[in-house]
């Protein structure tokens, strides 16, 4: 069987991805533990959860800016550019594949190439998560670490309360994204192909035997 190999995940990106994933998991677990804190059923001791959550949040912010620099100044940035023309149709096509075509053995409508790493659904969700939800989470998180920077009252409600609410909702969306993201790992030529890709850096497609590289 012929295999097409694309080097899509340079080493720095893979290290960033795994560190980021680890930080996210710690943040989600400590966040849930704080949100549902109880004297009777503590998941993680409250003060430990608070300190760990704050510290990990600071690391996540640093990690995010490393990613942002990568997007702005390396060639991975092109993968996040959305071409608005025909995007909705393309998005619908990819969604149809995930919800229907995949069960009929159809091929993914958008093949991975050196120019387009993400299909339209991935492009949309990664952009929303990486450029909206995560910044929202760490900006509100920093506000909660330094609560004196938050406006005292908004329409009669505590500014801290509203900030916390946005923070918790954004955190919830990230947990939902994480679960779906973990499942999507198994959607590939084989259930482990995508997992191997993010470890080795090479995307494998079954068809031709050719190796291309970027950002080595």
């Amino acid at each position, binding site marked *: 069987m012929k295999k097409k190999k694309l080097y899509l995940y340079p080493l720095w990106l893979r290290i960033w991805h795994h560190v980021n994933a680890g930080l996210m998991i710690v943040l989600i677990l400590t966040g849930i533990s704080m949100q549902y804190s109880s004297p009777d059923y503590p998941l993680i001791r*409250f003060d430990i959860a*608070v300190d760990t959550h704050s510290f990990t949040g600071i690391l996540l912010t640093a990690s995010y800016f490393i990613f942002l620099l990568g997007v702005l100044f390396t060639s991975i940035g092109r993968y996040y550019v959305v071409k608005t023309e025909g995007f909705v149709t393309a998005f619908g096509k990819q969604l149809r594949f995930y919800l229907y075509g995949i069960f009929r053995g159809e091929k993914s409508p958008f093949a991975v190439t050196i120019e387009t790493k993400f299909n339209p659904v991935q492009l949309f969700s990664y952009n929303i998560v990486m450029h909206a939800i995560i910044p929202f989470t760490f900006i509100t998180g920093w506000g909660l670490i330094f609560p004196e920077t938050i406006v005292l009252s908004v329409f*009669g409600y505590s500014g801290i309360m509203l900030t916390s609410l946005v923070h918790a909702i954004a955190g919830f969306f990230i947990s939902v994204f994480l679960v779906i993201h973990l*499942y999507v790992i198994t959607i590939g030529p084989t259930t482990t192909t995508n997992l191997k890709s993010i470890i080795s850096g090479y995307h494998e497609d079954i068809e031709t035997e050719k190796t291309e590289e970027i950002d080595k």
Partner: protein
Amino acid sequence: MPAKIQITDLTFARRLLIIAAFGLSNLTALAYDDKHPPIDPEIQQCLDCHGNYRYTLTDPEFGETVVLKMYDELRIDPIEYLTAAHGKFICTDCHSPDYETHPHPISVKFEYQNTCLDCHANDEHSLKFNFDKIEEEFQLSIHGDHFIENFSCWSCHNPHTYRLTTREGGRIADIVAFNNAMCLECHGDISHYAVLIERQLTHMLSKHEWLPNQSLHFRKIRCIDCHAAVHEDLLVAHHVLPASESVRNCVECHSTNSILMGSLYKHKTVERRNRFGFFNAEITTDAYIIGANRNFYFNVASAVVFGLVIIGIAIHAILRYIHFRQRR
């Protein structure tokens, strides 16, 4: 043995006192306005001297006069007095009539000092305060007069300035500032603390170093919320606990069964219960307490969304597996 005074104690503690006093001064300015009735002449007579920073003393025998400083402990701020809980009383309602003689005779130094119960026991207007229970709780507390000699209601509740901030509601920040200023009057100032007890003044900030977001806690909750045992019949707890028995477990406040609902927010809890599905909704107008302010609707919505995602993934995975088996 004289108490050891640490200069740093005073510096840090006074900083706290200034923050508390700042909040208090805003309250005072708002409380008194032009619509307030004129001052009773009998009160005015006392305030002519005790309401000022200096007063003129006349020797009744030779007619000589001298201008003297009115020391802080004897000075009454007219606005604070008139807006205080006891501001409607004329001075001799509580003080000896000997004060009507000028200069005051030495006998005034030996006058009997009333306690709260002298007036408020068996007084039907005071039933809601539950003074008997307050007295019982006070006696159990580390402030009880069997622990500290000469400690009385007045040691915390200055009869000339005391206001019912908690019972009358208002901004939680003002209630916190007013209440904490009472504690810091002694615990933040060795000159007051040393009058009551011969003991080293505890360094407030270093003692609370373990507390995350220290300044936020100091601004948002009262000292007594952690340092006093809640009593269901009292709006304000008076059973002050030793430091070793005070709240140190974060989740006692940071959970849906937050003890703050029985203390700092008790007066509001009685008025209104949950709003827009927030557990402990009363907290949400003034603060946000992690773990105590979960929202019922958000809880349900997040459980439903998360559940649907898991079910969706499970169905997707099963269908993929079936298709995979069919292809083989």
